[in-house]
């Protein structure tokens, strides 16, 4: 007897009734039987689909974050932070708030465990125009290379409208597959606060959480991090220095 028509096998897999002779053949035919089994499994899987399985597009900020992450990493775009199309443009507070909040939120829970005191939940952007007008330097540090860095780097904490902002000046950081993260460490390095991600080409400004005690966290540390989903310090420090208050 010849094999069952492929279209008929599909209907049988969907549970439609079939001729007894066809069913007999299938039972005795490894080829037809395995085909029915395969299609039955597909049908069963498809039938388990519910409304929530239907693909929906991610919110628009996801692409904006990806684009700015890739721009920041691309040598062609390095130094183009003033480009108005760049969502991470520091003069665009709304965009930057989203970028910061989203980029740290994923493993915020994990970060709260163990040695971490916790990252910043929100990133407040300080207009560079204002900072030059009303900024007072309250602490300074020179950052010493731990490895791979030739250019000297420095950090300072400014008080701007009652908020403290950490400025990091670092320009000689090597290109990386990962990213640079800025931390404030306790003197014994057992606890730390993540203050943000550093643009390797430009340095950056990082508003500090209100009420932070800089004497308890006086060490500025720049680490090289990888896109591994682990929000804890990589233990791979590139630059480090102690703030003189």
């Amino acid at each position, binding site marked *: 007897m010849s094999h069952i028509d492929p279209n008929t096998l599909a209907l049988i897999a969907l549970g439609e009734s079939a001729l007894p002779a066809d069913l007999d053949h299938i039972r005795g035919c490894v080829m037809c039987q395995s085909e029915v089994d395969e299609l039955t499994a597909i*049908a069963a899987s498809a039938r388990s689909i519910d409304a*929530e*399985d239907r*693909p*929906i*597009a991610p919110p628009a900020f996801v692409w904006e974050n*990806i684009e700015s992450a890739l721009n920041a990493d691309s040598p062609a775009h390095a130094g183009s932070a003033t480009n108005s199309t760049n969502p991470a443009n520091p003069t665009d507070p709304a965009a930057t708030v989203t970028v910061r909040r989203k980029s740290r939120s994923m493993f915020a829970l994990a970060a709260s465990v163990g040695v971490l005191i916790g990252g910043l939940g929100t990133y407040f952007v300080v207009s560079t125009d204002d900072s030059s007008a009303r900024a007072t330097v309250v602490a300074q540090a020179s950052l010493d290379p731990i490895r791979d860095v030739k250019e000297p780097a420095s950090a300072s904490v400014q008080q701007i409208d009652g908020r403290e902002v950490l400025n990091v000046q670092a320009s000689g950081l090597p290109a990386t597959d990962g990213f640079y993260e800025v931390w404030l460490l306790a003197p014994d390095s057992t606890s730390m606060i993540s203050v943000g991600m550093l643009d390797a080409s430009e340095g950056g400004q990082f508003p500090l959480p209100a009420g932070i005690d800089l004497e308890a966290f006086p060490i500025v540390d720049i680490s090289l991090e990888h896109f591994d989903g682990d929000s804890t310090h990589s233990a791979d420090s590139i630059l480090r220095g102690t703030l003189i208050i």
Partner: protein
Amino acid sequence: MILMHTKSNETFRSDSGASWASRSKSVKEEADRELTEAFALGHESAMRGVYERWSSLVYTIALRSTRNAEDAADVTQLVFIAAWKGRAGFDPNSGALPAWLLGICRRKIADFYAAKARVEIAASETVESVDAETVHQVATDSIETIVDRVVLADELARLGDPQQKIMELAFFNDLTHIQIASVLDLPLGTVKSHIRRSLDRLKTRLEANSVTH
């Protein structure tokens, strides 16, 4: 390097012209293939297209897995950044781009589960009551089930009509092909062959996406 890519992409193109492809399908497949080529060659402009084509898939799988829109957005972001940075590791000959993206997606979701488990273990006094291996296995199984379902839902939506309508009536309304033919006013033979081809297409897509990378 460029020569090698060009050669492999030509092979890739000629291999996938399946005889049963409908016109709409081959147009879509051609677009996917062009995107894949541009991505593999490192064209920055391809990233946007890749994102537009496959971010819904990644985001929905992440959303189903994490049950949290913010975490799903984070996973999606991590997947596409990792994909772009790791594009040198993508070989168009060893599997399709969506399969490769979903491989990254699985790993990012597994990382998410692991981070969550660490929090739960740390928060719990009874560390020994948590069997990490069991937790991991359950998480892995559920990711696979979710991936299969979302991929099938995606492919179903891409079948185009009347195939999509036919398959929805068959799967979700449990209509026979005779009833479907009558509801949609289509010849019986057309409905039968659409059912077979659509099932094959769902199967091909599912197999492509379960390739372990």
